[in-house]
């Protein structure tokens, strides 16, 4: 654990070395999330509901998703660069360390913009969200949603071990984000089955909203076991891919 804390301290120092850029990135990310959310506010000013989903549900979807996303990706900032790290042979740097290769790769940097996601999420919740009495449940679901985001990004980026180029995985993750950040109650039952299995975006934009509406411990347990299982599967995919990794011999060094 000591090396993780030391790495995080180092990353934090790097991140905040230029305080102006750090603050700008975080602030602008929060603002841009709020700006885009304005469109949903305009939408629900004219449309009463989407089959039972109103502004509160969409606010929860965006805010909890942003908080979960921010919590994980502000710390695991190497995740969105993982395919490039693999393709360019920079994973050598992590292999030289006597620690977990995956964690070393994910902890290569921290991201200020993801901290902005957290701030933006809380502002959305305060302005349009469900009642504050539900805050503990919302935060718990945020963590679970964040785990799904990490699992999806890690799995897609690990495909670089099988030759996927370094740009496509992030676009693939954006496609996942699109599915995960929009209301899903219009889908047919079969599509919902797909969203709760093959493309697990339903654990971000479907089941958590149901849990918020009709709380049950069994649904919550399902949500958390799904997010834990998916994260474990993503780690497994990474390690399966790692066996195929051939050193680039370009980036051997110590950090």
């Amino acid at each position, binding site marked *: 654990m000591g090396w993780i804390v030391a790495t995080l301290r180092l990353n934090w120092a790097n991140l905040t070395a230029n305080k102006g850029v750090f603050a700008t990135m975080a602030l602008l990310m929060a603002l*841009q999330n709020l*700006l885009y959310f304005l469109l949903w506010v305009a939408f629900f000013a004219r449309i009463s509901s*989407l089959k039972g989903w109103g502004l509160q549900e969409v606010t929860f979807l965006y805010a909890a998703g942003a908080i979960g996303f921010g919590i994980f990706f502000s710390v695991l900032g190497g995740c969105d660069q993982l395919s490039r790290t693999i393709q360019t042979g920079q994973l050598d740097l992590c292999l030289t360390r006597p620690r977990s290769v995956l964690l070393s790769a994910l902890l290569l940097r921290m991201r200020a913009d993801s901290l902005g996601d957290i701030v933006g999420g809380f502002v959305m919740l305060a302005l349009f969200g469900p009642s504050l009495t539900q805050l503990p449940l919302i935060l718990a679901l945020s963590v679970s949603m964040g785990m799904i985001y990490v699992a999806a990004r890690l799995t897609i980026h690990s495909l670089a071990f099988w030759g996927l180029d370094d*740009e*496509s995985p992030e676009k693939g993750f*954006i*496609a996942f984000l699109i599915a995960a950040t929009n209301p899903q109650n*219009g889908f047919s039952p079969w599509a919902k089955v797909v969203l709760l299995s093959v493309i697990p975006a339903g654990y971000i934009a479907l089941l958590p909203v149901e849990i918020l509406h009709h709380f049950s411990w069994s649904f919550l347990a399902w949500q958390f076991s799904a997010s834990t299982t998916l994260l474990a599967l993503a780690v497994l995919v990474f390690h399966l891919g790692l066996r195929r990794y051939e050193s680039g011999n370009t980036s051997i060094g110590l950090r």
Partner: protein
Amino acid sequence: MTNALGGMFALGERFTQSEGLGDARRVWHMQQSLLFSLSPYVAAARMGAGQALRNRGALGSNLIVYVTLLIVWAAIFRITPVEELGLPGLTTGHLFAYFAVAESIIVGCPGLALFGQLIAEGRLSEGLSRPCSLVGFTLAWLMGQHFVTTLVLLGVGTIALPLLDAPTPLGLLAGDGALRGLGLALSMTFGIALMGMMTYALGTVEVLGSYSRPLSWMVSKSIYAFGGLFFPVAFFPPLMREVAMLTPFPSVIFVPGSLMLNPTRAGMLEGLLMQLFWLGVMGLVLAATHRWVVNKALNEDA
């Protein structure tokens, strides 16, 4: 092509010097001069288009993003009570076709931070050393890329929309025929040109420091929000609609997309004129930022 036109230009000059300038020769000379002066921009646009087509990975991933958007939004529009918008004859299909056009422009964009990235890589002086306008060359290159990608996406959208029980852009255009088709082509070109201009203007901020990327997030989200990415500006609440209409963002996606909502001819013309107005304004902005960037680059060796 540049060499061929250059040769033609030199030949015409020798011809006019030896024979004197008759009217026909003067016109011929002017045409060649114009072609010669435009050729770098035509080449830049062709280069951009070629890059967009050759980069199969990027094109494929853009297609995945676009098709995902269409699938997700087909499901959302299916449960949207459009009758609450109070526009007779409006169907969910109209909203979906609007979205397909608007998204093709957004997803097809090579990136609002692209020019800033080139400046950050120290390639500004490379651009300034070309014997043509940096603004024109960059715009032509960006537009070439953007135009081709958007066309591919919209082509796929046109095939995919009937599978999702939605009318296609072509189907909606059929009623009014060629005029609406021409309007859509012009309007999309103007929208793409506006995005290119915004990319250039945003990129110049990079000369001050690494701010162009976060600023490009703000501009892209402003285009989504005030341009009405999935909900047309015409249906916004009054105050928000008025604020949006004071910005150039509806001209990027709302105006082209609104051609899918059965506008009148007057409405279509109004939209095109609004786009031309913003193109003029952005042209002035670019002229000013270009001068500033050149001064900065020459004085501070950017």
